[in-house]
């Protein structure tokens, strides 16, 4: 599997990256860890005549946890995230989700920026970021701008990011309460058949707030406001779980693939969502 030829660039500042993106337009792409892009290039499903490697850009691999605010640089790898005690304390769902992505070798290379920017409905971090109401920070020829993760995804591989913009970081407020990232997959290294990200808070035995997003059940991640709302004020009993699942099933739109037919995916979505909510509530 030999990818099409390309010119390789390894700039060390962002201005140069943006200038290259502007100069080459559609023919240029940035590469982070390459663990989504290289497989696509090998299959010749992606052709990138001008490949811009981000590995030498300074300041993209910092993890910051301060005053309840978390910022993850685009080049922070899944391995870095798992290894970071501050993240484990401030937003344990990130660690729980990262541990369910791919395998150790892939996690040393795969980055948060690549996972969030890629736009593959199978990527796990977009759903997590929607659950956490994270903000995606971009920079382009006109300077920086920020988009909510919940508004970022348009369709498979189509996002709000313009071709000449680069994702520099993802920022979020440290969540409170219980959490879970529950993922059904056929084997280690597989993308989700269904996965659910849940954050839930408990006030005197009742759900005070709940945020729920699911992965790989539509061409974009699905944050379901109604599914969360169905839990608020309840004690997460069977009826409440049923209502949350019903709301979520109204929002997802899975398609048949080698992970199963639509009816099976809808069934698995319900099972996984119940497990995720139950685990998050136990921890709340």
């Amino acid at each position, binding site marked *: *599997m*030999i*990818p*099409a*030829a*390309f*010119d*390789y660039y*390894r700039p060390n500042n962002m201005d140069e990256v943006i200038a290259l993106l502007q100069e080459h337009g559609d023919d240029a792409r940035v*590469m982070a860890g*390459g*663990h989504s892009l*290289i*497989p696509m*290039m*090998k299959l010749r499903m992606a052709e990138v005549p001008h*490949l811009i*490697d981000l*590995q030498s850009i300074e300041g993209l691999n910092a993890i910051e946890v301060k005053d309840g605010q978390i910022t993850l640089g685009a080049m922070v790898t899944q*391995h870095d995230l798992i290894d970071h005690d501050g993240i484990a304390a401030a937003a344990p769902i990130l660690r729980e989700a990262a541990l369910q992505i*791919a*395998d*150790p*070798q*892939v996690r*040393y*290379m795969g980055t948060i920026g690549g996972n969030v920017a890629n736009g593959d409905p199978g990527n796990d971090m977009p759903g997590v970021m929607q659950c956490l109401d994270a903000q995606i920070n971009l920079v382009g020829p006109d300077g920086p701008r920020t988009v909510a993760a919940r508004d970022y995804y348009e369709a498979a591989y189509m996002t709000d990011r313009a071709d000449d913009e680069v994702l520099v970081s993802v920022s979020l407020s440290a969540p409170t309460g219980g959490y879970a990232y529950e993922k059904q997959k056929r084997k*280690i*290294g597989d993308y989700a058949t269904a996965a659910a990200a849940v954050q839930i808070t408990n006030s005197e035995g009742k759900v005070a707030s709940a945020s729920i997003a699911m992965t790989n059940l539509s061409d974009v991640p699905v944050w379901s406001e109604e599914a969360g709302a169905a839990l608020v004020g309840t004690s997460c009993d069977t009826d409440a779980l049923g209502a949350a699942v019903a709301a979520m099933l109204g929002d997802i739109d899975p398609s048949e693939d080698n992970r199963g037919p639509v009816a099976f995916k809808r069934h698995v979505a319900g099972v996984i969502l119940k497990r995720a909510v139950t685990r998050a509530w136990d921890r709340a």
Partner: protein
Amino acid sequence: MTDKMHIKLKVNGEDKEFLAEPRELLIYALREKLNITGPHVGCETSHCGACTVTLDGKSVKSCTMFVAQANGAEITTIEGIGEPDALHVLQESFREHHGLQCGFCTPGMITRATKLLEENPNPTEEEVRFGMAGNICRCTGYQNIVKSILSAASEINAAKEAAQ
């Protein structure tokens, strides 16, 4: 075709320089340009781990890295781990516990395991299985691979204690 690039790598402690197209995969540069044939090509699709090398302190699948991306890196392959007449503890342990049958996966297994034990010198069986999940073996059923790694870990730890 694009121009060839001047690539510099440090492989198993030795400086290497050669010309390569940027799109060449690291595994082929190692095997075909440098004649370092320990890392194998199993799946070529980032799934099997037979091509695993240690690159700047990370276990990576060298079939999923362009040689241009690796330019400037320090790499360790199975050739840099132990010597035929002075095996690394992991190699000795794989031999002792039948951690291999055909041996195709073994260079990747042992290279990955060196890094795993460096990061977690005292793993549980579950941690070994999770930490080795990027490496596939078609022969052994994994049981003896896990046994080999656990046994190597206790041996390394015992040697460390004895040295103190």
